[in-house]
């Protein structure tokens, strides 16, 4: 062995990064692990099979970070729901219906953040406020809260393309229910916008529809700009809601039937 080769061997045996790079190179060529290990033993004789296997296994599964610190690997995975990987959370939320998703989101902040990230149900939401009921419709299902005689609300859940309905009595009043669900819709980062329609506030001045319909679901720190029709999002000052109100009139006398609001999440032009 020449002087240069000896020097290179000495360098390689002491250089952890070089060792990992060699394994990465070999794993990408799909050579059998044992063959690679035997071959590398000539240059890295002191390396044990377990260490080799660890890196070979990682690279083979597409984890190409050469600077990865093995001590950071989860030795005992934290077996709680909020600590689940995001793709797992996506699968779980995908199996939940709207009401159960909303309930799961209310369990704790940590879980809510995870659920919000993966919940795609609020892409298209339509909300209809009436005097005695509120209906929230998503792509997959609709939930309706109706006032009952006891002053509480009755919840009806119906999956789209399915005749089965689930009924449930709520302890909260109709207003508390719609407030809670709407607040959750608006806080969801995937919430892009919705239609709100109402015949409750039809006697208000036109410019105040958005205020009365949306204000109750917005926390104190947000504000509505009556001139521009934009609402600041409390989650991040970079986002705004744009609100457009349309009066829907029917009949020969063009009586005001209901007010429809289009709410869209838009990005702040200044960001």
């Amino acid at each position, binding site marked *: 062995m020449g002087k240069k080769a000896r020097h290179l061997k000495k360098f390689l045996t002491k250089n952890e990064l070089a060792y990992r790079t060699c394994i990465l190179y070999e*794993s990408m060529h*799909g*050579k*059998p*692990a*044992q*063959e690679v290990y035997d071959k590398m033993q000539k240059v890295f004789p002191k390396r044990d*099979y*377990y260490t080799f*296997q*660890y890196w*070979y*296994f990682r690279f*083979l*599964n597409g984890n190409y970070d050469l600077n990865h610190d093995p001590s950071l*690997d*989860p*030795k*005992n*995975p934290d*077996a*709680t*729901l*909020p600590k*689940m*990987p995001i*793709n*797992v959370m996506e*699968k*779980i*939320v*995908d*199996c*939940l219906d709207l009401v*159960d998703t909303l*309930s*799961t989101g*209310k*369990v*704790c*902040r*940590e*879980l809510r953040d995870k659920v919000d990230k993966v919940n795609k149900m609020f892409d298209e939401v339509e909300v209809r406020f009436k005097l005695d009921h509120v209906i929230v419709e998503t792509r*997959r299902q609709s939930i309706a809260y109706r006032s009952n005689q006891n002053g509480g609300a009755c919840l009806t859940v119906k999956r789209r393309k399915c005749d089965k309905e*689930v009924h*449930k009595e709520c302890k909260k009043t109709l207003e508390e229910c719609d407030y809670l669900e709407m607040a959750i819709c608006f806080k969801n980062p995937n919430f892009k916008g919705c239609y709100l329609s109402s015949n409750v506030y039809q006697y208000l001045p036109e410019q105040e529809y958005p205020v009365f319909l949306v204000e109750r679901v917005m926390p104190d720190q947000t504000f509505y700009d009556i001139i521009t029709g934009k609402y600041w999002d409390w989650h991040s000052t970079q986002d705004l809601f744009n609100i457009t109100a349309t009066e829907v009139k029917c009949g020969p006398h063009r009586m005001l039937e209901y007010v429809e609001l289009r709410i869209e999440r838009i990005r702040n032009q200044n960001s």
Partner: protein
Amino acid sequence: MSVENAPVVDVDEAAIPVEKKMYYRFESNDKKEFRVSELAIQQSETLNRLVEAMGYTSEDVENKPAIAIENIDGKTLKLVFQWCEHHKGEAIPVDDGSVPKIVEIPEFDAKLMDIDNGLLFKLIWAADYLNIVQLLNVSCKKVANMAQGKTPAQLRRVYLLPSDEEDEAAKRAAQEAQDPRAREVEEEFEERKRQGGNSFF
């Protein structure tokens, strides 16, 4: 020659050499060893790629050390391999996200997952880590079923999670336990404020 006219040959099945089934050896992080059939391993994309790349012969499997799975304990790995053996040879579902899936939990899986929540979440974590698509689907469905029709308070009990208030109180208590003087300083500061003093020192 047409198919109808092809000569019929009696086959002595015992005379055909049967390919010997290969069983791989795996070791959990608590040093428990498992022997798993080649066909069962195919349910795990990660392990299947690994054994293919290793190119072991039947002798290698016996003579070389068991393949270490560092992040999964024996209890969880036992469930994983039981599931793989039961479902070996079954088609692996393709998840392209285009159609919302309807996941049914078979009876065997339901019995296998009749375990405590901690172990169930470990099983999910392992199914994800080892990329066992159908096991991940059914275990996630099981967790979703646990949430059905429950209030947030009931869910906290099911998933053993504290509410935001309880969580904050626990964090405060932990902080105080770590630095008891911080609480004393805070109380002293509040007392001085009440007395109208504007200087703490």
